[in-house]
């Protein structure tokens, strides 16, 4: 049997007719009564969102000095969060665009919420660099526009490249996601019972009537967008990594960063996808759509990217000694023996040691284990970014300027708050939009017989 078919076999198609699929999934949005657990989750994440807003408000009122940043460690939590959130976004794009081009049909049942995850994550990421500015109200000076000062941005700065990278990324992601939503929005419009919902979904459905002409253009556009989005999986985090490797700070100034960061990004992305998928399928009874096999595949992907990350860790240390630069060597020694050593070893534990469990089949098949591993990796990846940014800065060229970074309450509040806001947006997405692409599932169900 062709591999493609084997994969297609994982699609839940054969077991359900299109109508049932639509009932099951649209039901979540239209019919299903709100569960108390859902409300509880909503409440908690809303609370953290408020915390986030308070932290940001206080930040704007007083200044970035409310954080623990200092000289020499002028970047810490905000930038760590930024890199972490952008990274998480990548898995979504990878699943929806990359796998689409590779004709990995099994992606259909997970791409929708993965893309949503991407958008919300990148939204969080996009905020961070603005929040971390000393004078955030001037953030638009980083963008090129004709002004009365006759000055332009400084094109050599990676931060300017970031503006473009992140900007492109979020726009393409949203358009891609929205395109995919059109048929489903139409479905919801047609199935909605109240006038209000009909209009709401209707407006966003942009008059989709499911004609052959619609489908034809839809398919083309979707494929094109996938083609646009795919390179972003590589480019965005490569550019982000340049924020560091472009600098001459020992511990930053390294050529391996782009691939290293991309691997790390996908790693944390798949982790987040699992952390979201497992409760999702349990809560909304989607086990037959997001099957063990799906989880297992994501587990495999996590293992692969995890190994790439582990390799990068090795290369970092190796090249420090191979390069023989005293400052680089000092940084590496300090990283694993100095004040931040606990963090460094926690990173090794979370990102390298524990995930090796994924070699075991039963782990890859156990939703719970994967969920736990996802959490571990998410923590590990955040710590990794923190380590790279903070420890390198805290221990640079002149010993006289060495100084440790100690986070304040507001550092933690901003991190926790951003996670809360992310969760809130995701929950609302589940409530108002189909978490799985009905149209694509129906298509799979329809295509299925051909493979036999």
């Amino acid at each position: 049997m062709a591999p493609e078919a084997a994969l297609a076999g994982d699609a839940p198609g054969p077991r359900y007719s299109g109508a049932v699929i639509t009932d099951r999934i649209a039901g979540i949005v239209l019919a299903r009564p709100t569960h108390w657990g859902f409300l509880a989750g909503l409440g908690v994440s809303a609370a953290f969102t408020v915390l986030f807003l308070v932290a940001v408000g206080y930040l704007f009122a007083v200044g970035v000095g409310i954080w623990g940043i200092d000289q020499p460690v002028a970047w810490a939590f905000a930038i760590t969060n930024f890199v972490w959130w952008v990274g998480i976004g990548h898995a979504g794009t990878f699943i929806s665009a990359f796998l689409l081009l590779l004709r990995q049909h099994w992606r259909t049942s997970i791409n929708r919420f993965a893309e949503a995850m991407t958008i919300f994550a990148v939204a969080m990421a996009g905020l961070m660099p603005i929040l971390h500015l000393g004078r955030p109200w001037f953030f638009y000076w980083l963008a090129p526009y004709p002004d009365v000062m006759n000055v332009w941005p400084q094109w050599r700065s990676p931060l300017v490249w970031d503006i473009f990278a992140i900007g492109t990324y979020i726009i393409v992601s949203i358009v891609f996601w929205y395109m995919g939503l059109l048929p489903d929005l139409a479905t919801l419009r047609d199935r909605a019972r109240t006038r209000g919902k009909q209009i709401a979904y209707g407006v966003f459905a942009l008059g989709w009537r499911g004609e052959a002409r619609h489908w034809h253009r839809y398919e083309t556009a979707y494929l094109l967008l996938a083609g646009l989005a795919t390179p972003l999986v590589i480019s965005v985090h490569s550019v982000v990594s340049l924020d560091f490797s472009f600098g001459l700070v020992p511990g930053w100034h390294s050529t391996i960063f782009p691939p290293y960061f991309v691997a790390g990004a996908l790693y944390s992305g798949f982790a987040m996808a699992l952390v979201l998928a497992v409760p999702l399928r349990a809560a909304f009874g989607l086990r037959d759509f997001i099957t063990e096999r799906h989880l297992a595949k994501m587990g495999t992907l996590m293992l692969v990217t995890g190994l790439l990350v582990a390799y990068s860790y090795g290369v970092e240390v190796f090249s420090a000694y191979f390069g023989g630069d005293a400052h680089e060597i000092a940084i590496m020694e300090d990283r694993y023996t100095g004040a931040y050593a606990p963090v460094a070893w926690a990173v090794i534990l979370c990102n390298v040691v524990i995930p090796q469990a994924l070699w075991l089949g039963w782990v890859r098949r156990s939703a719970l284990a994967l969920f736990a591993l996802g959490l571990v990796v998410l923590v590990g990846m955040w710590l990794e970014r923190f380590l790279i940014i903070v420890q390198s800065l805290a221990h640079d060229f002149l010993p006289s300027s060495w100084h440790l970074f100690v986070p304040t309450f507001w550092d933690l509040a901003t991190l926790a708050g951003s996670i809360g806001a992310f969760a809130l947006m995701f929950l609302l997405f589940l409530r108002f939009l189909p978490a799985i692409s009905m149209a694509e599932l129906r298509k799979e169900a329809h295509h299925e017989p051909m493979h036999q």
Partner: protein
Amino acid sequence: MSRDPNDTDRAAHLRFWRSVEEAQGEVDPSADTIGLPTGRRDFMRLMGASIALAGLAGCSRPPLERIVPFRDGPQQQTYGKPIFYASAIARDGYGAGVLVECNMGRPTKIEGNPLHPASLGATDVFSQAAVLELWDPDRSQTVRAGGAIATWDASIAALQGRLRARPRGAGVRLLTETVTSPSLHAAIRALLGRYPEARWHQWQPVNRDNAYAGARLAYGTPLDTTYRFDRARVILSLDADFLDAMPGCVRYAHDFASTRAAHAPAERRSRLYVVESTPSLTGAAADHRVPLRARDVPAAAQAIAHALGAASDGPATAPVPAEWLQAVVADLSQSRGGCIVIAGERQPPHVHALAHAMNEHLGNVGGTVVHLPAAAAEVVDCTASLRELARDMHAGSVDTLLVLDANPVHTAPADLGFSDALTRVPFKLHLGLYEDETAAASDWHVPAAHALESWGDVVAFDGTCTLQQPCIAPLYGGRTPLELIAVATGDAQADARTLLTRYWSGRQPQDFDAFFDDALRRGVVPGTASAPQRPALRPFDVPPSTTPPGASLELVLTTDPRTGDGRHANNAWLQELPKPLTQLTWDNAALVSPALAQRLGLVNEDVVSLRVADRSLDAPVWITPGMPDGCVSLSLGYGRTRAGTVGSGRGANAYALRTVDAPWFVPGVSLVRTGRRYALASAQTHGRMEGRDIVRMVSVAQAAACTAQACGTPGYRDQRTLYDSPPFGPYAWAMSIDLSSCIGCAACTIACQAENNIPVVGKEEVRRGREMHWIRVDRYHEGSVQNPRTVFQPVPCMQCEHAPCEVVCPVEASVHDAQGINVQVYNRCVGTRFCSNNCPYKVRRFNFLQYSKDVPSLDAQRNPEVSVRMRGVMEKCNYCLQRITTARIAADREGRSLRDGEVVTACQAVCPTRAIVFGNLNDPQSEVNRRKNSPLDYALLAELNTRPRTTYLARVTNERHGA
């Protein structure tokens, strides 16, 4: 703007005092809108008149700004141009000449007076900070009677009433600090003549009692001994910190450095031996240093004197290493007439006497060592004088006490019970700059005029006299001691200037006006320097060194390098200026040696209780490499209760452990852990170089044989690069810092702070590592922790030609200009801080919070030529761009190009040792080029190929072999 002597003249030609007169409202009814403001409010109104646009108002549509014209434009004053006035600022009674820069009537910056022997154009940190003291909103602002607001006239009436009731002055006492001012002395004498039974006491916590007593012992008369370090080839310091804490230390530092500079001629290069009881700048500069318990110093002195043959008998055992002793003795006796033995102010009289004996024996007196009549108008033993006063107060025989500019309640030895005694005095009048501890204990308090607001005169370490002229009318109607004495003598009308001219016209009857103008102009009264004396040495006997047995600890009290005896406690600049050896800010701490700390199981910031007899004091511990084992060192000047909002309640009050018999060295101290901890803010958390090539050191021999390949950075200026080199205009500014000359006094740091409107951030922020100083002085220890070599390195922005900060700034806020300066454009900066991360020297400073507070009186200090930075903006050294621009515009107007030395940066101007040289690389003749062509020239972290414009000259050490 240039700071060469012509400046003094230019400044001085302005017959400035005219407008002061007017401003004092005596001549012209409309005085308060002219010339100088009389008070802050008027003065704020006038500020509009200054084009000087200080303050970073982001938006381009500001509220309507107002311009208030003068009534009659003051002569010599051009809008928007600074004027310099020559004056003097006293430290512990000894004056140093200064030039005060005034912008639109506001004293904003202080420079040294090149014509003054104690300054030669440089100043110490205290003079730099004086301008902040002037504008300190905590200063006493009104006369107070028993705490209630009163008037000057009321205080006069009360005082004169008191005195009228005592025609012969019975029970009337006057307490001052050591008086060197001739006019004030004359006035006091007049007062005592008028009231024969009145008595005059002098008390100053940091006094010269020991030195004078030592001179009495050796010569039978009190003397001020001065030294010519520029002539000395071998120097032995017996616990004397002559580079940082001695009358004339600024001049001494200059002379000393002239024999230490990287390119000092071999025949003039000096070698410095130091024994000291607390690490000091002098110890750090030493070639051979021995940490020694203070109580062992006399024995050491005796041993050396004996070995030299200057003393008949020596101690049983010398407390110093034998080979060290041999080295000192050999070196000293090899350079007879060309060496110096100098005893520390705190050492007991016979150590001073021994030093005199050695200098006589070595034939230094008259050459490198010069005896002068004491600068103090009348030499008294301060301690005895105060003890006597306290005794009489206890006895109740004092009923009227005038305290002029002194704070005995805080500074009196603990065992005198001074404050209790004070309560027994019915009438106490206090004249002071602040409503301090003594003011609170007095019935009447009169605000004193600040040195920059006063007419007066003061004598320098070598007897040279300077007339002090006010640069602004007293902000709070303060009075000078001279005025108060005049009032007491019955002359309530005369103002300070009249009194001063009255005295000096007595000394200079003929052609007085010309003389007075000239003296003001130059900032020195010609021909007042004291004539050297050659008294005969008399035999004296040295008390047997009484070393208490065993391990009982000894407490060494020191003058604080920042707050002095406590009078500067409310000065935020000084509080935040890292102390040279410990890099501590905002607090004093009990300094202990690493070994002692280990024995007692102490770590930094542990609070210990220091116990002596029945007294005890809690203080946090700071482990200090190079502290002699077996003693604890604590600086005076902290634990003030009424210093002001900045200084009150900071640190531990060492006076609590100070007694009449043990003013400096307290034996039999015990250290008891309290289990508590106290957070200290150190500006530098790591003190070792980790084997990196940071402060480069070479021996004299190496330096002589030195080629660029050997010890410089070969051709770091033309290393290969992928980037195109920055565009060059006619000027390529650069700086060279001589690490051999630098003594680490940090005057550059505070001068920069004053010049560039650098905010103070406070203790918590310093702990976070957010201090804002544009030029910091790094301190590294090398070698053993027991007795390390300590080196200093001033680090301003390196102005890299390939600046790593520039390529990462997203908004062009960090850019290169055609003069090769790496400019930081504050109004363009959005605060990404990437530039700081990417700066290998970490010289960029970020306004994490709104540090520049908007306090009217402090705004008045700001330099109008420099933007005040708001929060969220990165800032850093820009080679005093405002000074370059001002000079360049002046030159461009005349269509000529700048001469070498015409632009002087703030740090360069203030440096006592001339360690910093700044100039134009495109001018082959420039001093800076001469230095950079030296083989000792090297760039910090040159391997990064940042091509710094600021480079260093390696530190040349001059050890004796086998010592």
